[in-house]
């Protein structure tokens, strides 16, 4: 890659990486493998940068490559663990074109971060505590349950509720923005 192409490309990496990671995750990739697959996507994109028309949407082009890579994952026997479920990924990838249009996927990083911060503040005390443990301390539902002497299914359900609340709030915020 020419030096100028490399510089342009690295600017794109910084600009698109968060959106791309969210996209990769939304295709049913295991959380631990999201960074890896997103990096693979950028490496593949760098290799075929000559094919990209710079007047087009780079993010959309990346998402196409990522989708292709994730679908390919299903064919790789040894790497199947990168996916939560082969079957689910097949279906998520099928509907992925539509999800890409949602404001949450296309929103700018700062807007989305602000929306997330605002919505986290709207959660109940317990809800914040749960999100704190799950994401900021990176504890599994099982560990959170053990710590609070609760049933792990209750924790999973509570997390699902918090996520739904957050999502609803964020969609609202981002539409307003």
């Amino acid at each position, binding site marked *: 890659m020419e030096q100028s192409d490399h510089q342009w490309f690295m600017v794109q990496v910084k600009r698109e990486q968060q959106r791309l990671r969210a996209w990769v995750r939304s295709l049913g990739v295991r959380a631990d493998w*999201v960074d890896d697959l997103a990096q693979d996507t950028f490496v593949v994109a760098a290799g075929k940068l000559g094919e990209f028309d710079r007047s087009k949407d780079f993010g959309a082009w990346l998402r196409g490559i990522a989708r292709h890579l994730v679908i390919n994952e299903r064919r790789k026997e040894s790497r199947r663990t990168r996916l939560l479920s082969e079957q689910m990924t097949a279906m998520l990838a099928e509907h992925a074109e539509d999800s890409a249009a949602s404001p949450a996927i296309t929103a700018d990083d700062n807007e989305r971060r602000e929306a997330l911060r605002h919505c986290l503040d709207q959660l109940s005390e317990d809800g914040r505590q749960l999100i704190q443990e*799950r994401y900021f301390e990176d504890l599994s539902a099982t560990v959170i349950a053990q710590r609070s002497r609760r049933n792990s299914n209750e924790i999973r*359900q509570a997390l699902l509720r918090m996520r739904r609340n957050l999502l609803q709030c964020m969609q609202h915020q981002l539409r307003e923005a």
Partner: protein
Amino acid sequence: MKGDPHHSELDHHLARFLEGDAEPVELEALAAEVANSPDLAHNLAALLALDQWLRDYAIGSDDSFAAGVAGRLNEIHESDRDFVSGVEQRLPKPQKKPGAIRTPRFLPWTLAAAAMIFALAWPIWRQGPKPGTTNHGTPVVALLVNAFDAEFAEAGSPDAVSFGPGYYHLTKGAAQVRFQNGADVILESPVEFHIEDALHMTLVSGSVRALVPPTATGFTVQVPDARFEDLGTEFGASVDAAAQRSELHVFEGLVEVKPPDNDELLASVTYGKAVAVDRGVVSAIPTADPERFATSSSIALRRWEAQRASLCRDPNLVFYFAFEDDGNQLENSATFGSDVPGNIHRARWVTGRWPGKRALQFENPGDSVLIDIPGNHAAFTLSSWIKVDRYDHSLNALLNSADWSPGRHHWQFNRLGLTASGSFEGRDRTPTSIRVVPGQWTHVAAVVDGVQGKATYYTNGELAMTETMPPGTVFRLGTMHLGTWTSPNKDWPPAVRDFRGRVDELAMWRRALTQTEIQTLVREGSPLGLLQGAIAP
């Protein structure tokens, strides 16, 4: 929705799917639902995307990802280049030496390090162009890869770091020589020997330890009246020239003892056994004694001990914790250092870089050392040896000021092992793709120059991160926590940044050290003789 058993079952599967722990039968059921409902598919995709935003939000900085991509692109670029020529360029240039008189030579570490790069590349080198020759016109069959205080006699010294067939006499210190086929021989002075070729050496007097990988099976050490032929193993050999007596101690595998001139098998010596050869007579002696033979690690330990002795006297040290204590306090070994105690809270004493050397293990919440650093600092350098067990948090704090306010400094690593440090006044933080890899003893250094307005972080002597700040920034580090950090504020999110691993050695200077000085700390403190992590090709 409540009370609808269908919905609650779907939610149950959904919740487990999002946590990544759904059973196959649950996935099956969920897939069936999703297949019938595009809305559910979109909703699920949005929930997964949200999960990722939360993860990214928790990590905060995202420089490491871009650095990772840049690193991978760079790797691809690098592998296109001719590896062998790259390695050869790094080797010291041969010097013409006039006349036959040669002086005893101290072998500087830089040369040994260069040789090590060459030795690592050897498998490739063997398939490529012909190996070089020494200045004596002989082919290179072995290289010096590790040494402490090593001096060779006039009449028996290598050509810089290259050994061809010939006579050698190590008069001082210890050295490790790697043969072309991969066998390592560790020499403890005084020792005299001949190198015949890549598979054969003759021990005239003194003792050596040989580590023979499968590629070098058949490696033979000849002694008076016998030869020790190795079958993939580790052993020690010693010769008492005056008494015409030699010994063989086998630490691993099998070594055969044969006469010098034929293939008759005199003895097969296995793991833990030892024999003596006394004027051609082989006899068993008590068990193999590994203590008698130097190791790569024992050379490294001696090098560090020498470093420690000179470091203690450095007038610029604020504190130097060598981690050789066993109580509740770290002792400041800096002769001219400030009165800086290190109060250990719960962290346990464990084995450090070498057997017998101590380190602190940070394993449970609250394991820490509190260090009060008095005064203002215009510049400072921190240096430490760490072995990370794992990265539990988005940020993992090694040594952080208790809070985050003007003059404070945080020294930490992100989940990928990339440096994510900084000072309160800092900006333009730029990490490289150099990581602290879990499970390996790693040297880390923070060089913070408030006068120039620049901070530079190193991992194994390589640039890991830079940061700028307004020139003239003054630091007031205050109480620092080693091995943990918890946000003292009520901020969202309240952070937890416990370090998980071992720390062996921590020092602080009241000036900015240069990269060369940092690299010296790395070389002289490395637990391995061979600095693989530090100077990989």
